[in-house]
């Protein structure tokens, strides 16, 4: 892309907020978002196990599920994902970050299909394709906004 020399700084806020201090692990925003999606996917699977284990004591607020170790494992992974998510939010606008992390909606059925041999209905394949196309569109629009700086 061509280098453009500008004498004045643009006044509108940049899509990526400046991040002066490096974060650990040293990952790009995209890699961090993908890591977050994988962590949340794992956490949701653990939570589902915990919720199922305590379904006989169900209430509207799922406090009964706290009696299961699966739920606590899910919470631990969720906390890790949350710290990672805060690092993402420091650099990426919320609307973009949240749209990109929706890749987890495609990851769960794909993981179940690839690792556990579950079948995916045609309707679900269409949904997975739509999610991936949507993510590509959002990522492209974000990359363009980044280029304009």
């Amino acid at each position, binding site marked *: 892309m061509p280098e453009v020399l500008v004498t004045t700084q643009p006044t509108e806020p940049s899509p990526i907020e400046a991040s002066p201090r490096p974060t650990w692990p040293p990952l790009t925003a995209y890699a961090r978002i993908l890591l977050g999606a994988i962590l949340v996917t794992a956490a949701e699977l653990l939570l589902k196990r915990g919720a199922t284990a305590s379904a006989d004591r*169900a209430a509207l607020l799922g406090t009964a599920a706290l009696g299961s170790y699966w739920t606590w494992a899910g919470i631990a992974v969720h906390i890790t994902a949350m710290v990672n998510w805060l690092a993402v939010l*420091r650099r990426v606008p919320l609307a973009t970050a949240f749209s990109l992390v929706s890749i987890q909606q495609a990851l769960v059925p794909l993981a179940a299909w690839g690792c556990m041999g579950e079948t995916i209905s045609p309707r679900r394949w269409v949904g997975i394709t739509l999610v991936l196309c949507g993510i590509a569109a959002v990522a492209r629009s974000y990359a363009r906004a980044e280029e304009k700086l």
Partner: protein
Amino acid sequence: MTLIAILAAFACQLLQVTGQVFLKHAMLAVDATPHQPRRVALSLAAGLAFLTFWFLLWIGLMQKWNLSVIYPFEGLCPVLMVLGARVFLREKLSTSGWVGVMLIAAGIMLVTGS
């Protein structure tokens, strides 16, 4: 599918959007000059409080209703999130970005509803 399930699932999405807006608000304050530790702490606490409530309500919904009933409401979340970010954080999304968000929303509803 009762009315209370619809309302609870929708409220769940609103709780998540509110929590995320507060978290982003906190992260914007982290790199602000001059430093605003109070703003960071308050927004972070508010965000985590909303998300904790969202989390407990979400587990409750998963126990009470079938996943294929509750989960399609997740599809609303990206759309509500973009709206929330626009109103409260003045984040702008291009037209192709909006198209992408709509595709994601439709895709999530198809994936989760089947």
